[in-house]
């Protein structure tokens, strides 16, 4: 038993964004107890921290995974459209895909803020949405390229910003994801209906 060992404090902070107020205390307590009594003792400090991060990632995926899949789907749909239906005027497409992305980040943040009652939860949810979408976007773009790579498509890719854009744009969405998630989180935390805290202890 390693009574004084502490899991990564950033991990605990992030965990809070994916749980209700009611559940954060009990779930983080369960993880802390397992970390100290079992994982640290059997796996060592470094692997215990990795275990803790894996648990946090699991909570993040369960909560933000659906937003991440939706965001990746929007990105891949837009990419496929640019490759298959080339256009000289990208303004309308850009406006639609940007609005969809902003809406997804706002919604993810709003939900996180409303659930946790914590404004910063929205920024973390936005970060998780953009971050979890990254591998899906990279893999998806790679698969599209494997499926479609004839000269016409290659010309359309060049005309729509090139492969560099396909692989850098997802990285550039992380910061807006945090920003719009934060806005959604602030709105969600302010406008959420009052709920029983669920923290009352039984006699």
């Amino acid at each position, binding site marked *: 038993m390693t009574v004084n060992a502490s899991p990564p404090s950033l991990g605990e902070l992030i965990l809070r964004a994916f749980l209700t107020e009611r559940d954060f205390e009990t779930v983080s307590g369960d993880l802390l107890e*397992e970390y100290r009594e*079992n994982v640290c003792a059997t796996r060592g400090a470094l692997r215990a921290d990795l275990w803790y991060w894996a648990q946090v990632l699991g909570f993040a995926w369960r909560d933000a995974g659906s937003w991440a899949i939706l965001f990746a789907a929007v990105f891949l749909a837009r990419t496929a459209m640019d490759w298959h239906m080339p256009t000289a005027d990208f303004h309308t497409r850009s406006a639609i895909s940007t609005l969809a992305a902003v809406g997804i980040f706002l919604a993810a943040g709003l939900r996180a803020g409303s659930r946790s009652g914590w404004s910063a939860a929205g920024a973390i949810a936005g970060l998780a949405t953009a971050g979890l979408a990254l591998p899906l976007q990279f893999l998806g773009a790679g698969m599209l390229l494997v499926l479609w790579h004839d000269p016409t498509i290659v010309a359309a890719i060049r005309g729509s910003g090139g492969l560099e854009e396909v692989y850098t744009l997802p990285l550039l969405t992380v910061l807006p994801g945090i920003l719009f998630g934060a806005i959604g989180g602030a709105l969600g935390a302010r406008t959420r209906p009052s709920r029983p805290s669920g923290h009352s202890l039984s006699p």
Partner: protein
Amino acid sequence: MADTLGTFEQAVMLAIVRLGNNAYGRAILNEVQVRVKRDVAAGAVHATLSRLEKKGMLASRVEAGTPVRGGRARRFYKLQPQGARALNDAWSAVDALWRGLKRPLKGSVRLRASQ
């Protein structure tokens, strides 16, 4: 049969039954891991507990934490009559599927059936 339980839901509920008065988050996680013989994510157990509680199959109460938890409260779970019914239904469904067959099945049974 109102609700059909998945295998993981059954594992979580049976862990609660086995643990009795000590069925709180971490203990349930460990009991499930022992029974299914693999690492299980705490998030998966938490999501299942929340879902089953919302369905009325489980009830929970919060009690004070211990020093090793940094004093953080523990949530204890208890099986409700609706949960017990769902577990019994799940067992009956499996039992009906196996009735009349000898266990363990042998490969030759499958081969003869496919000929």
